[in-house]
């Protein structure tokens, strides 16, 4: 197993009150698997991602990556944020090379690798621009290239397409699918879009509303290149929608 989430719980303390966010999460993620974490907002899916990234410590339980416990953030787990979070003082190329620079990779090697990933996301001609000059979709492409160029075996994506318009969002979903068929990363992808989850995931993990537990796991047995209008696709969509709706209803009770 690539990632093992073992009885992970997390609660936050504010004003002396403890609020549980995650309760007893157990999840095994296989190598090269793409898992979508799906659930109503506030269900703790991003919290789980942040724990796997090493940004947060679980209150109890452990996360193992390649059998070793996670103790903090590291270059083996690339992260793509909803807010893009590019380094604004670096060019597109500088951003993509950032992790390699930290490792001390020589400049020509860095340039070669950056070029490869900028080609993969279709931004080679924008290599010398600064992030302020890019649209949201382009920024997120840079963030994906930056994560990939650092050669992590795991990529954690926290609603990466959540801030984009519907068209850009679908285009990027398709690009991610295409990239995954080349790069074969282990991906943990947080989303609240059911369509997005069915389109991308090998397995969809539906979480309960707060405190977050795993409610149900759907294995998506669809071909690698997916058709959003195929009957099997919509079949999965409606099945998952039914399960998610139960949870959303609970939030509003």
């Amino acid at each position, binding site marked *: 197993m690539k990632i093992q989430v073992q009885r992970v719980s997390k609660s936050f303390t504010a004003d002396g009150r403890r609020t549980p966010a995650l309760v007893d999460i157990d999840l095994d993620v296989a190598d090269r698997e793409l898992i979508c974490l799906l659930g109503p907002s506030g269900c703790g899916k991003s919290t789980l991602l942040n724990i796997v*990234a*090493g*940004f947060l410590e679980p209150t109890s339980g452990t996360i193992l990556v390649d059998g070793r416990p996670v103790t*903090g*953030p*590291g*270059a083996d*787990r*690339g*992260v793509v*944020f909803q*807010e893009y*979070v590019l*380094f*604004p*003082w*670096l*060019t597109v190329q500088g951003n993509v090379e*950032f*992790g390699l*620079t*930290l*490792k001390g990779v020589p400049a020509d090697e860095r340039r070669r690798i950056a070029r490869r990933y900028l080609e993969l996301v279709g931004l080679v001609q924008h290599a010398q*621009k*600064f*992030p*302020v*000059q*890019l*649209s949201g979709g382009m920024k997120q492409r840079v963030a994906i290239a*930056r*994560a990939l160029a*650092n050669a992590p075996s795991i990529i*954690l994506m926290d609603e990466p397409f959540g801030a984009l318009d519907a068209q850009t969002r679908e285009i990027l979903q398709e690009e991610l699918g295409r990239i995954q068929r080349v790069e074969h990363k282990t991906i943990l992808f947080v989303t609240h879009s059911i369509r997005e989850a069915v389109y991308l995931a090998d397995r969809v993990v539906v979480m309960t509303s707060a405190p977050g537990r795993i409610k149900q796991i759907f294995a998506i047995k669809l071909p690698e290149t997916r058709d959003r209008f195929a009957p099997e696709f919509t079949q999965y969509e409606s099945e998952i929608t039914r399960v998610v709706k139960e949870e959303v209803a609970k939030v509003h009770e």
Partner: protein
Amino acid sequence: MARGSVLLSVPEMMEWGLRGPAVPRRRALRLRVLSIVLFLGAWSLAAGIVQAAGLFNPIFLPGPWLVLGKVLAMAVQGELWAHVGATLGRVAIGFSTGAALALLLGLPAGHVRAVRNLVEPVVELLRPIPPLAVLPLFIVWIGIGESAKAGFITYATFFPMFLTTVHAVRQIDPLLIRAAQSLGARPRQLFFRVILPAALPEILTGLRLGVALSFFVIVISEFIAAEQGLGFLINDGRSFFLVPQMLGAAVLLGVLGYAGNALVRLVERRVARWQQAV
């Protein structure tokens, strides 16, 4: 993206939509020059009216040309350069020491909570005291020599530069830190490759404040005890009603302050190229 090109970037388009088209550079420059010309014109007019109508003794309000003449005369005689040099030297030493201290203490104080809790209370206690109030103390402690003048600038400029540095580090988006950490940044790399560049624009704003403040306070310490410097020229002029000399020195201080500001702006434009990239 080049200015005036048809394809605008998204932020540029938004700026355009919100505030209308930017004023072309040449027209902006013309307006700026016009503003100075109008000011000099109003000044000349006022001086002329005083002279013509005999409102009061015209030596109290000499026109700009008289002031310029006095400055040029002093420049030709050579005495001006000693005064300008003395002021500039004190500002250079005092300001750079202040800036170095502000960065040396401010960067760690912004980054590490323990350091901040240790340093900030003292700073907050001393900061509300007007620097002028401690000038006599400086004279008592270190005398009226050069080190007291430079030291006074250091003291006065330290506070705003320290506070902007602390703020510059504290306002850094924590997600930038997380992004760098998940790309493998160790603490040292985090500091030099993320925190420093992210804080730099605001730090430079603080330095510009410091430069302006340097010229502000140097004059005062040159009033009290100096044989040279632009502040001395003003004070000396006061004793003998040499108004053109007083105004000339004041104008020179303004020009020097402006140049200092422009110098830091130049550095800003160099290191924060990405901000103007739009």
